[in-house]
């Protein structure tokens, strides 16, 4: 988040920042960054799941029960659309796992015709 502009007195003074973002536990800052991403993503995923639980509870009180959700059978059109979206999600999230990088960052272009 960009530095906040406060419109009221804050009674805060300048702190001495920690340097926690400079540490690398894996000898490669990219790996450390990826772990940070995974934790942050987990937080967001759980927040979404928990919101769904709240929605289900609210819906249940309005007559839409959990059982109705569990037993819901998608239409053929819905099933096809959801499958397509599932595959897009998998591709987007996990396709990098198939990469096998074997070039250093300074590697030149291969010879071109």
């Amino acid at each position, binding site marked *: *988040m960009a530095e*906040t502009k*406060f*419109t*009221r*007195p*804050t*009674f*805060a*003074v*300048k*702190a*001495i*920042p*920690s340097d*926690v973002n400079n*540490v690398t*536990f*894996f*000898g490669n800052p990219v*790996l*450390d960054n990826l*772990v*940070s991403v*995974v*934790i*942050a993503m*987990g*937080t*967001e995923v*759980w*927040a979404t799941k*928990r*919101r769904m639980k*709240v929605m289900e509870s609210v819906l249940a009180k309005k007559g839409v029960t959990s059982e109705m959700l569990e037993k819901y059978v998608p239409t053929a059109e819905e099933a096809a659309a959801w499958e397509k979206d599932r595959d897009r999600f998998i591709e987007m999230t996990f396709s990098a796992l198939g990469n096998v990088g074997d070039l250093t960052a300074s590697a030149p272009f291969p010879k071109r015709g």
Partner: protein
Amino acid sequence: MIGRRSLFTATGAAATALSSFFAGRAAEAKSIVKKVAGDVELRGADGRMERLGSLDLESQMDFTAGFREFNNKGISRTAAMRFQQLMKEKGMDPKAIVSFDEMHAIAGSDPIIGMSAKTWLANQQVTWKSLQDYFHANADMYLAEMEAADKDGPGSLTLDANLEIPDYTKHEIHIQPGGYVGDPFAGHMYHYGTNSFYIGAIGHNEQDQIHKGTANNIPMPADGKVKRILEVGCGLGQMSCALKERFPDAEVWATDVGAPMVRYGHMRARDLGIAVNYGQGLAEKTGFPDGHFDITVSYIMHHELPQTATRAVIAEANRVTRTGGVYYPVDFNTGGSTGPAYGMFRRWWDHRWNNEVWSREFHTLNFSDEIAKAGFTLNAKTPAALPGFGARHFVKT
């Protein structure tokens, strides 16, 4: 024994199941927070804990509390086993007591050991960032709420715009953005962030259970007179509230260097209808008269101080506590420049990367000896007010 790392980093082995951040809510989940002028309470309260202002933020805190326990019980155990394996490979006794340097030599840059620290710290950063982003995005509303409370009671608030804030207090302890003095919502963030610190280590504290239990265990002076109580380094004031609830007829004063901390503390006490007098000030220079207090306390403050400041605070406590009065600084047991390798690893990254800047100085001090040297007498028969922490019932002689 609860070590520094047990409460604010790792948990002990006491917890047997992942607990929800919200499991500590009041039994009937009713608010006992009073509705007062200017109060912002968007989603109600569970007992004395105002619910966070958005469902998403509440859920994010739920995740980070759960992940903290998962890390402490799962990933950390793997790392501990890895230490043992590495020590065996080096021909060492896996249970050997080692120094920081020896621990570093064993661990090297082992990624399995590193994972326990990295995931813990990343989770801690998400905790703080989620809270800070929310309160900054709604800054005007929450700052106005504090402004409405500043001049209101019960209790009082005194801020000192001219206070010279020592550098040693300006660090981002626990990697909390802005630390205790540098963010206007330091008290808000500390309150909601530290709830998860307690879960798994000691127990739930959403209803100030830990503070109330500790306050109830603080010994009385032998003559039974308790007219005035002082808490220094009060943070967001949970201990001082608990002391006022135990001693409703006593004047309770509480000071902290962080204006945002005492502003939040005063606002919260006022919402709870608890009359504590909060003030921004230094523990080593309180400004109160000699012998003014019957009981002087601090709660898990000293390990955040350099040794020079700790000695100055003890001297000030001796000055403001009356003869026969009680001095009880609740804090971790000291000692610990050596230990089992994995424990030393946790102690190291807690100090260095969780930014417990002064914890090594605290742990190399004999804290109880320092207090005794200042003119207090230890009553060694009194058990620790907070189980697992140091037993430090001192009497001014």
